[in-house]
C-alpha cells in the first residue's frame, strides 16, 4: 500500500503502523459494502437466510471499529503524529465511525426484511430500494478508493452524487405515502420499507462524510461549499398526490 504514501518514514515501523490502521479501514469498508448489497438483495429476493447473515456480520464490523480505535489511540500515544500523519490518524478514526454506522443501518435493513417476508410484497418497491442501495454502495466504494489513493477529485464527485440518492429517497417516500393512502393494510409494510429507504439515504450521508474526510486528509481543510441537497421530505405534507 506504500505507493500512495509520500516518502517513507525514517523509522519504518511507523509506516507499518499507519498502513495497518488504513488496511483495517479497507477491510471494514469491504465488509460494509457487502452488507449494503446483501441487505438489499435479501429484501428483493425475500431471502431470510441472507438477511440473517447480514445481521450476524455486523459483529465483525463492530469488532473492526474497536480494533481501529485501539490502533489509532496507540499511534497517537506512541508516535505523536503531526501534519499529514496526524490527519491520517484522525480520518482513520472518523471513517471507522462512519462505517460502523453504515453497518448498523444494513443490519437494521436485514431485521426489517425478516418482518417484511411475512407480508405481501409491495409492487416495485424492492427493486427501487436495491437500485438505491447499489448507488450508495458505489458511493462508498469510490469514497474508500479516493481515501486510499488520496484522490480529492473523486471524493468531490462522491459528495455531489449524494443528491441523486436523496432524490431516489424522495421518490420512494412519495410512493409509500401513496400506497398507504390507497390501502391502510399496506401501512405496516410501507413503514418498514420507508425506514429501509431512510437507512439507505443515511448511508449516503456517511459516504459523503467519508468523502469530506478524504478532502481534509489531502488538502488540510474540510470542504466548506454547500453541496446540493435533495432530501425534501422534511417539508412534505401527507396530502401530496
Amino acid at each position, binding site marked *: 500500500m506504500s505507493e500512495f504514501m*509520500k*516518502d517513507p518514514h525514517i*523509522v519504518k515501523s511507523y509506516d507499518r503502523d499507519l498502513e495497518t490502521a488504513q488496511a483495517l479501514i479497507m477491510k471494514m469498508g469491504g465488509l460494509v459494502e457487502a452488507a449494503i448489497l446483501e441487505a438489499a438483495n435479501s429484501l428483493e429476493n425475500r431471502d431470510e437466510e441472507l438477511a440473517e447473515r447480514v445481521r450476524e456480520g455486523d459483529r465483525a464490523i463492530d469488532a473492526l471499529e474497536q480494533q481501529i480505535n485501539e490502533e489509532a489511540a496507540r499511534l497517537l500515544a506512541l508516535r505523536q503524529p*503531526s*501534519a499529514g500523519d496526524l*490527519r491520517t490518524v484522525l480520518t482513520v478514526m472518523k471513517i471507522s465511525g462512519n462505517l460502523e454506522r453504515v453497518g448498523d443501518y444494513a443490519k437494521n435493513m436485514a431485521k426489517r426484511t425478516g418482518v417484511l417476508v411475512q407480508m405481501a410484497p409491495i409492487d416495485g418497491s424492492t427493486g427501487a430500494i436495491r437500485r438505491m442501495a447499489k448507488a450508495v454502495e458505489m458511493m462508498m466504494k469510490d469514497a474508500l478508493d479516493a481515501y486510499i489513493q488520496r484522490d480529492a477529485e473523486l471524493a468531490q464527485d462522491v459528495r455531489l452524487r449524494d443528491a441523486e440518492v436523496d432524490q431516489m429517497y424522495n421518490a420512494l417516500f412519495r410512493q409509500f405515502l401513496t400506497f398507504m393512502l390507497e390501502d391502510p393494510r399496506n401501512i405496516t409494510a410501507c413503514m418498514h420499507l420507508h425506514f429501509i429507504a431512510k437507512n439507505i439515504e443515511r448511508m449516503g450521508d456517511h459516504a459523503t462524510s467519508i468523502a469530506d474526510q478524504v478532502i481534509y486528509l489531502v488538502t488540510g*481543510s474540510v470542504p466548506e461549499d454547500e453541496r446540493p441537497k435533495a432530501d425534501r421530505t422534511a417539508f412534505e405534507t401527507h396530502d401530496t398526490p
Partner: protein
Amino acid sequence: MYDTPNLENKVVTNETKISARGCQVYYGDTHAIKDVDVDIEDKTVTAFIGPSGCGKSTFLRCLNRMNDTIDVCRVEGDITLDGEDIYDPKVDPVQLRAKVGMVFQKPNPFPKSIYDNIAYGPRIHGLAKNKADLDDIVEKSLRRGAIWDEVKDRLDAPGTGLSGGQQQRLCIARAVATEPEVLLMDEPCSALDPIATAQVEELIDELRQDYSVVIVTHSMQQAARVSQKTAFFHLGNLVEYGETGQIFTNPQDPRTESYITGRIG
C-alpha cells in the same frame, strides 16, 4: 479541522519586535544563511526548528550579534530591534546583549554563588543603586526563573552545585536579571530530564507575558508545546514560517512536512 481558539496560547500581539530582511551569513566561503526575511513578534514564543546544520542556531546568534565573536563569520542584510539596526556601528554589542538575553544548551552558571550569578549582569550594567536594590533584583529574577523557593535559603552556595534543571533555570534567571526585551534560547532543555524540561517550558510560557522569546529546539514536540510561531529552516533557507498549530497540522511546504513527520526528505 478548525483551530480551536486556545486563550492561553493566543498570540497576544502582532507587534514586530525583531525584523530581518535579506539576512545572509557566511562562515568564510560557506553560505550558512541564505536571504532570510522574518518578523519576530513581541510577547510571543517563536520556535526555530530544522535538521542539524540548517542554520537555525546561526540565525539565532545573529539576533544578539553573538556571531561577532567568530572571526570568519560575516553577516549581511538588515536586522532591526524595534526598528533600529542592531548592526549599526554605533550599537554597543554588550548593551545589545543586555537587551537581547541568551540561554544556552548546557547550563553554564558562573563558578560563583547563586546570588552573584544573578547579580553579575546588573552590576556591570549599573542597574542597582545600592545593596538593597541589588537584593531586590536578585530575588525578582530568581522568582521569574521559577527557582526562588528552591534556592532562597542558600543564596551563598555555588551555582554549580545545583541540579541540571535548577542550573538551567538559574541561567534563565540570570538572563532576565538585566531586564532584557528578547530572550534567545538555544536548545535550553536538551540536557534536562522531562520534569526539569516541563518546568522550563512552563517558565517560557510565563516569560512570554513580558518578553519576546525565540527558542531553537530539536524537539518538535517541544516546539509544538511552547511556541505560538514556528519557523522551519533547511539548508540555510527559511522554508516556512507560520502559526505553530498550522505548521504541525497542515504545513504548506513538502520539506516542512517531511521533516516534522520524520520522513526521508
